[in-house]
């Protein structure tokens, strides 16, 4: 019995020490002169040896004895600690680990004798080729006395069984629920002392919860500790030189999450060493130092923990990835043609993908990056890969701090309560009475709400969940919970918004596994169960979010959808004989239906009194010369475009639909007012040239805007369609725009007149964007003008816009507001005579720069 306890104690202690040894050995190899380190390693091996002898673990005693001898020789300066010796000692450590595991399982050693290892150890121990100079100075007495920096820490800590901590956490969860219940009861009673007591209970519970959560927190260093060893072994194996740097090892995470990311993290690191960092030769040829760098970074950010694994290797060979992906059938070839490099690089996360030509011992073991992704998504995290050819790859993992207790917003619909995780919540909007009917606009069957100039798609929770329509249907109040699902925002309409609460997340049984709209359940203050909504699932179910986009979780993402060309929402309408016209929904401010008799004429032009102002109107059918349109209807449909106080309404015959599709022009058009035709929603659709329509209607729109100073923008863009689109957006924003189709023309215009901002398409033919940039930077008078890169439509990614090197900003063509905001910032910076470079328009772009 006593022996058993001793063995257990020995196991716990040795496992802990041995884990540290790995790291210390590698460190020692790099700093061979570190006597304290050497002493610590020596002491550890010595202790294990001693205890093994005492407990009759003879094999272990034998091998550690030899290791001790060798280390002793190094310590006394008899020999140097050469890499082969380090490898030998590491082998000993491995053997000890194996034996420890065996003892843990069976209470006995494994029976393996390690003859080969012992023989080599004996040989090494005997062969003390005297070192030219003692590598390590003999320890000075003072060192020996001050060896332990640990005791103070070890004295104040105790070991606790993890099971006990888990139980503690569960109990605190129950306590939180009971507290919520007590608070609910006492709030109804008017007993001062009871209230005071329950307030105290409230505070204590919160504090206890926090403390217990802390006991489960572990620094991420626990996982990182074993990486130096992994990397050392790998680099020896593949003949590479890799420096590992770690930043933020003290960042703390819940133990369950630490457990969950351990394997994915190791896998990513292995991959970076194997595929990412090149051999020293290749690196030198590429003009990089022979040593590759692998950088691990962890930091907290808004309730999440970010982990970055960055290497300065060759980056992902997207063409190779593409070829492999097609060959392995994980993606269809035609889809890859339109993919950006970033999207191509992210193909590695698709199930079934592997670049390894053959299975090496390092990677290609069948654990693909898709497993990494699935595992991280399982704990509510995300993973993203950004790679720059030649300069390196960064993988970012974002995971929640804890899974157990989260803040949630309680809402109710049809007397049922639901909880929405606070992390997805953006804002709450409450519309009352008349407003609630007026501000919700319907396009076909799609409800929309205009939120600060943007149309926000709405989903009614009762409809999404197919709850029966109750009596209180004609609600006078409309509560919209604005939520973020992936890169989309949508409004969830609920009957009531109750309050926010700390909730304890409990999993749902397998009976409910097929339901993707719930993330779990919790117990409310009154003891009843409430379901926690899965915002992404709700968005998908209500088709606010196209199925394919959000399907990345749970490994359901279909390869074809992940190819995701940029899609945008388009408003479809009819005007005269043009049955199917489209305009990007992002340009639309409002849709109105106005009784025909409210149309008036001012100075010969149709206007309507609208919110205390006159709204100038354009008869679109008349303007486009496609017949007069219908006059018989009692009311007219108006699409309102706005820029600040500047508004214009376009009279159309019918609003047909809103569809989400790719915006790809197939045929340019000669017809005035039409940019060209595209296939949208499976049908040929004409895309309206908003700018030319407004201009030819001569409403004074462009003259009126921005009296103070008109910034001049030079737009270099090859595609007529994009040029039209960008020009329309810019001119509606009050800029004066001049166009160029190629780099030469752009540069000529730049020399001829003054511009405040240059916008160039990244895909300008002949690498025109780079030409413009280079040429401008070389000319002193042009060097300060900000140059903005516009991403190709098919390739820009809404989520993330890396700033191409040298450009002041990088923009998506379809993000009108973001574009205008960035341009305004850049233009004003020039005005303020500040350096025209704005390196990071948004924080997101920061992380995409290659590691330096």
């Amino acid at each position, binding site marked *: 019995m006593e022996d058993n306890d001793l063995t257990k104690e020995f196991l716990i202690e040795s496992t802990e020490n041995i884990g540290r040894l790995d790291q210390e050995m590698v460190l020692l190899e790099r700093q061979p002169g570190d006597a304290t380190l050497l002493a610590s390693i020596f002491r550890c091996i010595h202790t294990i040896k001693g205890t093994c002898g005492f407990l009759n673990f003879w094999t272990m005693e034998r091998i550690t004895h030899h290791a001790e001898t060798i280390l002793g020789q190094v310590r006394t300066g008899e020999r140097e600690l050469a890499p082969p010796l380090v490898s030998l000692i590491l082998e000993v450590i491995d053997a000890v680990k194996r034996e420890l595991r065996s003892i843990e399982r069976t209470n006995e050693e494994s029976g393996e004798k390690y003859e080969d290892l012992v023989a080599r150890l004996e040989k090494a121990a005997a062969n003390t080729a005297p070192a030219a100079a003692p590598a390590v100075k003999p320890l000075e007495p003072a060192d020996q006395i001050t060896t332990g920096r640990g005791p103070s820490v070890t004295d104040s800590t105790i070991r606790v069984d993890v099971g006990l901590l888990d139980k503690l956490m569960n109990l605190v969860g129950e306590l939180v629920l009971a507290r919520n219940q007590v608070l609910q009861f006492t709030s109804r009673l008017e007993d001062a002392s009871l209230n005071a007591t329950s307030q105290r209970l409230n505070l204590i519970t919160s504090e206890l919860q926090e403390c217990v959560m802390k006991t489960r927190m572990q620094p991420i260093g626990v996982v990182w500790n074993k990486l130096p060893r992994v990397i050392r072994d790998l680099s020896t194996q593949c003949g590479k030189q890799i420096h590992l740097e770690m930043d933020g090892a003290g960042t703390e995470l819940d133990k369950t999450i630490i457990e969950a990311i351990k394997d994915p993290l190791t896998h990513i690191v292995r991959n970076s060493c194997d595929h990412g960092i090149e051999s020293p030769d290749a690196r030198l040829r590429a003009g990089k130092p022979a040593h590759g760098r692998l950088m691990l970074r962890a930091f907290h950010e808004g309730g999440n923990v970010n982990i970055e694994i960055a290497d300065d290797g060759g980056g992902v060979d997207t063409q190779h990835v593409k070829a492999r992906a097609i060959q392995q059938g994980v993606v269809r070839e035609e889809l890859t043609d339109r993919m950006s490099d970033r999207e191509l690089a992210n193909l590695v996360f698709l199930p079934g993908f592997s670049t390894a030509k053959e299975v090496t011992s390092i990677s290609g073991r069948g654990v693909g990056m898709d497993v990494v992704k699935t595992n991280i998504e399982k704990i509510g995290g995300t993973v993203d890969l950004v790679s720059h050819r030649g300069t390196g790859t960064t993988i970012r993992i974002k995971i929640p701090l804890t899974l157990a207790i989260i803040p949630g917003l309680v809402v109710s619909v049809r007397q*049922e*309560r639901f909880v929405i995780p606070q992390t997805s919540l953006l804002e709450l909007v409450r519309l009352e009475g008349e407003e609630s009917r007026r501000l919700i606009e319907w396009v076909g069957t799609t409800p929309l709400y205009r939120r600060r100039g943007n149309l926000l798609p709405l989903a009614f929770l009762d409809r999404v969940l197919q709850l029966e329509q109750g009596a209180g249907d004609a609600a006078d109040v409309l509560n919209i919970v604005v939520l973020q699902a992936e890169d989309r925002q949508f409004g969830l309409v609920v009957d009531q918004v109750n309050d926010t609460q700390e909730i304890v997340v*409990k999993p*749902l*049984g397998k009976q*409910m596994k*097929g*339901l993707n*709209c719930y993330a779990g359940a919790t117990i409310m203050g009154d003891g009843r*169960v409430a379901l926690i909504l899965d915002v992404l699932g709700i968005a998908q179910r209500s088709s606010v979010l196209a199925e394919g986009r959000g399907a990345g979780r749970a490994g359901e993402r279909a390869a074809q959808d992940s190819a995701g060309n940029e899609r945008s929402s388009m408003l479809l309408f009819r005007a005269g004989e043009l049955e199917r016209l489209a305009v990007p929904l992002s340009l639309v401010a409002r849709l109105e239906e106005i009784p025909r008799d409210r149309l008036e004429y001012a100075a010969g032009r149709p206007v309507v009194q609208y919110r205390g102002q006159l709204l100038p109107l354009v008869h679109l059918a008349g303007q486009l010369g496609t017949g007069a349109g219908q006059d018989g209807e009692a009311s007219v449909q108006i699409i309102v475009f706005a820029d600040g106080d500047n508004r214009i309404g376009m009279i159309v015959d019918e609003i047909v639909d809103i569809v989400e599709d790719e915006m790809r022009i197939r045929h340019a058009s000669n017809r005035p007012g039409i940019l060209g035709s595209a296939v949208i929603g499976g049908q040929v659709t004409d895309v309206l040239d908003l700018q030319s329509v407004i201009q030819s209607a001569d409403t004074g729109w462009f003259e009126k805007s921005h009296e103070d100073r008109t910034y001049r923008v030079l737009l270099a863009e090859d595609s007529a369609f994009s040029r039209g689109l960008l020009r329309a957006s810019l001119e509606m924003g009050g800029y004066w725009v001049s166009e160029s189709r190629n780099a030469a023309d752009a540069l000529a215009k730049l020399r001829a007149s003054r511009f405040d901002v240059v916008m160039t398409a990244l895909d300008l033919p002949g690498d025109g964007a780079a030409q413009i940039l280079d040429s401008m930077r070389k000319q002193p008078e042009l060097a300060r003008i900000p140059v903005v890169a516009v991403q190709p439509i098919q390739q820009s990614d809404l989520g993330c816009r890396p700033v191409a090197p040298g450009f002041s900003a990088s923009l998506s063509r379809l993000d009108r507001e973001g574009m205008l905001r960035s341009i305004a910032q850049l233009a004003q910076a020039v005005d303020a005579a500040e350096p025209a470079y704005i390196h990071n328009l948004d924080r997101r772009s920061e992380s995409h720069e290659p590691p330096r």
Partner: protein
Amino acid sequence: MSHPDSTADSNRHLATFFMKNLYFGIEVHKVQEVLRAQEMTCVPLAPGVLRGLINLRGQIVAAIDMRERLALPARPGGQEPMNMIVRAEDGAVSLLVDEIGDVIQVAAGSYESVPETLSADWKVLVEGVYKLDGRLLLVLDTEKTLQLQHAH
């Protein structure tokens, strides 16, 4: 579990319950406890068999309506179901039944495998039949009973 030889020993104890006029039994060691009607939270979009979720001392337990599961007519209004909490792989599940019976010991000799003429649905759920005095006791296969087809 569904193997008659291993289950039909003479010491078999079954927890019994009534559904309409039918008599059912479940292995007694699979039953965790029996409760009166509990307050329930419905799960929209879940299959109809899944009546809702109950709070069993802090544990969230799905409740399966056995009337629906066995394709019997719905329980008449006003009749509160009883909860028979059974242990499953991933926690407890409650079976909503009409009335709870005794725990009885059944003799191996009275066991018979499922009659061929039973409807296909039932044949999956019922593992065997005990011929008792004056009535039949249908033994449910709990694992199969708890397996629901995903509606959506």
